[in-house]
C-alpha cells in the first residue's frame, strides 16, 4: 500500500509497562524505526528499548549555567570597576569575593531556566494539538493507566494493515488507526 498522507500511524494499547517494553523490542526487531511509546509515567528501561541516545538537555544546561555565571561575574566587575567605581579608602575595586554570591545565584538561575526551556524546546512543546489526540482511547488512558506504542506512517516499512496486524500479534489490548489532520 502506498503512503497515505491522512494517516499519522497506528497505535497499540498495552496494559502494563512490561508488555510495552516487550512490544517495543519486538517492533524494533521487526525493522520499524519511526516508533514512539507513550506512558503515563517514566518507565524504566523504555529509553534503552527504544535505543534513545543521550539527550542535549545537560549540554544546554551547562551552557546556560556558564553564561549566567560568567555574565553575572563580569557584569558586576564592569559595574564596580568601569561604570561606577567607588573609591572607599583605596580598597580594591575588583573585590571579587563579594561578587561570588550573586555570581552563584545567576549561575543557578541561568542553568535552571535553560534546563526547563531547553527541555520544552527539544520536546517541541508547547504543541496544543497532536494527531494522537484524535484517538479516543489514547486521550482517555495515555495520561492515566495504559501504555501505548505508535508506529508512524513515515516509517519506510509502514503499511497500515500489515503494521496493525503486526501490533495485534504482540498481544495488544487494542490497535487503532491514527488519523492525521
Amino acid at each position, binding site marked *: 500500500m502506498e503512503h497515505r498522507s491522512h494517516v499519522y500511524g497506528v497505535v497499540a494499547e498495552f496494559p502494563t*509497562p512490561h508488555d510495552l517494553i516487550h512490544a517495543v523490542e519486538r517492533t524494533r526487531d521487526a525493522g520499524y524505526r519511526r516508533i*514512539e*511509546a*507513550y*506512558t*503515563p*509515567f*517514566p*518507565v524504566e528501561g*523504555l*529509553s534503552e528499548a*527504544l535505543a*534513545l541516545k543521550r*539527550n542535549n*538537555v*545537560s549540554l544546554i*544546561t551547562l551552557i546556560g*549555567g556558564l553564561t549566567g555565571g560568567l555574565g553575572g561575574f563580569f*557584569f*558586576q566587575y564592569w*559595574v*564596580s570597576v568601569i*561604570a*561606577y567605581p*567607588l573609591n572607599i579608602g583605596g580598597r580594591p575595586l575588583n*573585590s571579587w569575593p*563579594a*561578587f561570588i*554570591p*550573586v555570581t*552563584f*545565584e*545567576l549561575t*543557578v*538561575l541561568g*542553568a*535552571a*531556566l535553560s*534546563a*526547563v526551556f*531547553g*527541555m*520544552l524546546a*527539544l*520536546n517541541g*512543546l*508547547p*504543541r*496544543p*494539538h*497532536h494527531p*494522537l*489526540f484524535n484517538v479516543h482511547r489514547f*486521550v*482517555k488512558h*495515555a*495520561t*492515566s*493507566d495504559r501504555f501505548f506504542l505508535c508506529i508512524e506512517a513515515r516509517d519506510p516499512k509502514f503499511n497500515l494493515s500489515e503494521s496493525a496486524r503486526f501490533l495485534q500479534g504482540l498481544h495488544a489490548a487494542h490497535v487503532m488507526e491514527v488519523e492525521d489532520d
Partner: protein
Amino acid sequence: MSTRPPYNTEEVQVAPVIEPGHTYSSVTDKISAIVLTRPTSLGWVAGFALTFSLVMVLTISLAWLLIKGVGIWGINIPIGWGFAIVNFVWWIGIGHAGTLISAILFLLNQKWRTSINRFAEAMTLFAVACAGIFPLIHTGRPWMAYYMFPYPSTMGLWPQFRSPLIWDVFAVSTYGTVSLLFWFVGLIPDLATLRDRAVKKPLQIVYGMLAMGWRGSARHWHRYQTAYLLLAGLATPLVLSVHTVVSFDFAVAIVPGWHTTIFPPYFVAGAIYSGFAMVLTIAIPLRKAYDLEDFITLHHLENMAKVMLATGLIVAYGYFFEYFMSIYSGNKFDLYLTKMRFHGPYSHFYYMLILCNILTPQLLWFRKARTNVALLFVMSLVVNLGMWLERFVIVVISLTRDFMPSAWGRYSATAWDYATFVGTIGLFVMLLFLFVRVMPAISIAEMRELVAETSEGHE
C-alpha cells in the same frame, strides 16, 4: 530499601509509603477527583472565607502603610528592622522545606518524598511570596523597589554588589524563580492528566494550555527526566545558599549577637526545621480533609518528625554555641547581649524560644510521640512559633542593646504590625486552599511510578 527504619521490623509494623492495593487508575482517580469531581465542601468554603477576610486585613494594612508610611509600625531608630525583617526571615525559612523535599530527597532517592513534594513545593512558593512582601514594604517607598535591580538608569547608578542586601535580592528572586520552575515542571504530566479527564470545556482548555500538549511520549520523558534531575541538582545548593545569604544580612553587620560565623549553617538548619514544621501543619489537616491517609501515611509523618528532631538539635547546638562564644570571646558587648537575652526586657521571649524550639521537640525521640498525629500537629505549631520567636530575639534584642547605652531603645509592635503579619498568614493559607482545589496536591505521575515499583516488588 534505604527507607527502612533501624528498629526491629518484625515487632513494629512499619507504615508503608503507599497503602497496598492501589493501581494506576485508582491513584489517578483518587487524586484527580479532588480537583475535578469532588464537590466543594462547606469546610473549604468556610476556610477560604476566613482566610480571604484575613487577606482583606492585609490589603487594608498595606493601603494604610502606603498612605502614612512605615511610621504606623513600631519601628524607630535604633530598631529599624522590627516585624518586617522578623517576618521576612520566618517566611523565607518556611519556604525551605519544599525545595529540600523536592530536590535533596529526590537526589537521595527517598521514596517517601513522593506524596508530599507537590504541596510542599506549593507551600514554598506561597511562603516566598509572603516573604517577598516584607522587604519590599520595609523599603518605605516600595514603588522605587526596582532601584535594587541593575538596570541602565539615566542617572548612571548601579546597585552596590558588595552589600548583602543586594545579594538577598538575587538570592530570593532566584529561589522564587527556580522553585516555580521546579514546581511547574513537576506539574506538567499531571496537568495533562487533568486535561484528559476534565469533562467541562473551559477546564479542558485551561488545563490543556497549561499542559502544553504533553502526551507522555518516551522521548519527552527521556528529556524531562534529565531536566528534572538537573533542576534537583541545581536547587540543592540553591536551597542551602538562600538562608546563608539571609544570614549574611545579619552576620556581615558588626552588631553584637549578629556578627558570628555560625549564622549561615544555623540559619539553614533553622529554616529546614521551621519548613518541616509547616509541612506537618499543612499535611495533617490535608490528609484528613481529603482522605489521603493512603498516600500520606504515618511513615511520612514520622520521617518528617525525625527531620524536625535532627534540625532542631542543630539549632539547639547553634544556640549553645552563640552562648559559648560570647563567654569564650570575652567580648564585653557580646557578653552583655547574652546577659540581656537571659535577664533583659525581652527575656520572656528568649525563654519561650528555648521552650518551643529546644525542649518541646525532645518528645520526638519517642516513637509514640512521632506517630501521635494530634500531638505532632500541636508540636509543629509550637516549632513554628518558636522559630518566629528566634528571629524576634535575634533582631530585637541585638538592636535594642548595641554598643552605646545612649543608643539603647525599646521596641513594641503596633496593631498594624500584627495586622500585616496575620494578613500574610491569611494570604498563605488562602493560596493553599486555592491550590488544593485547582491543582493535584499530590504528584499523580510519581504515585503511578510508586505503584509500578511496589507491585514489581511483590511479584
